[in-house]
């Protein structure tokens, strides 16, 4: 039994390792702070960002999560991370059964061509994610002030 447990443990570790491949350490750390030891699975989250961005100073971002949003099964929170911004966190929002739908739209800054990841925490404690690659031609935060 313990051998089976060890085998399962090794498999989970490898999955997490594969998911985190190519992800910068600061981003991994920021995600760990949110999910702890929880396993993040791809799916259920839809991340809507234009694939080509002229101006990284205001990029429309829409996140929606598949969930019935009832009192027993709802989305607790949505977190958005970026790979190459000076700080990986973008936003964390906290929802509940009264939200009706698990959707959010806002405008974000992107410092570089990079991958954006959204992670949703469900009421049952599971985590789901989606990632999108975007190309940014004019980056945010790099210009100097006069």
């Amino acid at each position: 039994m313990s051998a089976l447990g060890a085998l399962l443990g090794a498999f989970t570790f490898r999955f997490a390792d594969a998911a985190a491949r190519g992800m910068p350490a600061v981003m991994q750390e920021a995600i760990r702070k949110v999910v702890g030891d929880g396993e993040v699975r791809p799916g259920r989250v839809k991340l809507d960002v234009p694939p080509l961005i002229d101006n990284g100073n205001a990029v429309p971002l829409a996140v929606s999560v598949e969930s019935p949003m009832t009192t027993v099964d709802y989305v607790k929170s949505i977190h958005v991370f970026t790979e190459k911004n000076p700080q990986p966190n973008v936003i964390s929002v906290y929802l509940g059964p009264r939200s009706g739908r698990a959707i959010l739209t806002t405008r974000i800054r992107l410092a570089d061509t990079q991958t954006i990841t959204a992670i949703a925490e469900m009421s049952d404690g599971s985590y789901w994610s989606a990632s999108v690659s975007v190309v940014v031609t004019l980056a945010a935060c790099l210009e100097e002030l006069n």
Partner: protein
Amino acid sequence: MSRAIVNVPSSARRGEVIEIKTMVAHVMETGFRRTQLGVVIPRNIITEFVCRYNGSEIFRATLYPAIAANPVFTFTTIATESGTLEFVWRGDNGYTATASATITVT
């Protein structure tokens, strides 16, 4: 002086999912930019946004410097009863902005 705009439907049927749009005027200075003299411009952002429906919290957000200037949020809630929605933004240097809207639920 703070300026905030909220868009809440003035009336809704009970149980209907309504969309709420908010925008607040704020520079959202990241704290990563420098002047031409190389001096870092200190961070000045909104860090928290909360929406309450008749006193109970229905939406909360934690903001980071990667949110664009003049933060915009669109989210939804279920119209449960007539009353007031209150919106509060809090940020660096003691920044606070508030807004409210009334809704009639039939």
